[in-house]
């Protein structure tokens, strides 16, 4: 059960950082959704806000970790000029070329949208804190931004998983 250094970093990027972000999204969205006066008690607001602040900042941090490890550690191995690199192998076969020309080209850019939006969400939640419940319009806007961040990360994650299946980084 041996993994090379490159495989290990690919796992850290995608299956650790990336997966944490995508899986934590559900909890974060539920937390924002339920922050409505009719649904929570006074104590509930305090408890949920604390969790929401921590959760959104952890998610923003994880999103940054995902794109930084992806771009600056894994991506150079992917795009290496050698014929054995993942990119070279994909482009060498017309049946797999689109995994790079569309899949990776989309993934490598759209992923960076997630941490910028996630950080804005974390800031908005933190700034108003327990008083966020008084700003229902902002709460909805934060949810929308949160969903867009998730969608961007989701696209990157899906294509990353498939590309690594078709042309693993070794």
């Amino acid at each position, binding site marked *: 059960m041996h993994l090379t250094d490159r495989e290990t970093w690919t796992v850290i990027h995608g299956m650790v950082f990336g997966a944490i972000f995508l899986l934590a999204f559900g909890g974060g969205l539920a937390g924002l959704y339920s922050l409505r006066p009719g649904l929570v008690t006074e104590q509930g607001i305090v408890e949920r806000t604390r969790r929401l602040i921590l959760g959104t900042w952890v998610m923003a941090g994880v999103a940054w970790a995902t794109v930084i490890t992806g771009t600056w550690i894994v991506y150079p191995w992917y795009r290496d000029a050698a014929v054995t690199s993942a990119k070279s192998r994909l482009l060498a076969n017309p049946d797999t070329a689109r995994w790079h020309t569309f899949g990776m080209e989309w993934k490598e850019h759209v992923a960076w*949208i997630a941490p910028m939006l996630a950080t804005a969400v974390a800031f908005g939640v933190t700034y108003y804190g327990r008083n966020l419940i*008084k700003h229902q319009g902002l709460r909805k806007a934060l949810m929308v931004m949160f969903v867009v961040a998730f969608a961007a990360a989701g696209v990157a994650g899906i294509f990353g998983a498939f590309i690594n299946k078709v042309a693993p980084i070794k």
Partner: protein
Amino acid sequence: MSDVNVEASHPAATAGGADATEPDKPFGPVAAAFIAAGVGVFVLGLLTTLAEASKGFADSLNFRDPVGPLSGKTILAVAAWLVAWVVLHVALRRREVSPRAVYLVTALLVALGLLLTFPTFFDQFAPE
């Protein structure tokens, strides 16, 4: 999207939970965070499409060879995001701005950024 404080009278939104005694904070800092995120996304998209349109421009974004032009795109996009956030925060931190206008501007910038980073779109600008 209205941000009118219609729910403040609910018991759970005041005593113990939300702080009814504390004056409401200006929306400016949140507006700055939102718009700055939009700026960052838009700049990323713009650089992506421009790099596709011009190999010379793409080469100029090659800040670090193993990463290629993506290094410059991401560094400049993040820099634009941070600079915009600082500038807007300083400018708006004590001001009330229209949430609707902020959401609209942010949505527009993010939508453009998403479009400009979509391969089927930016491929249209690739040289023949």
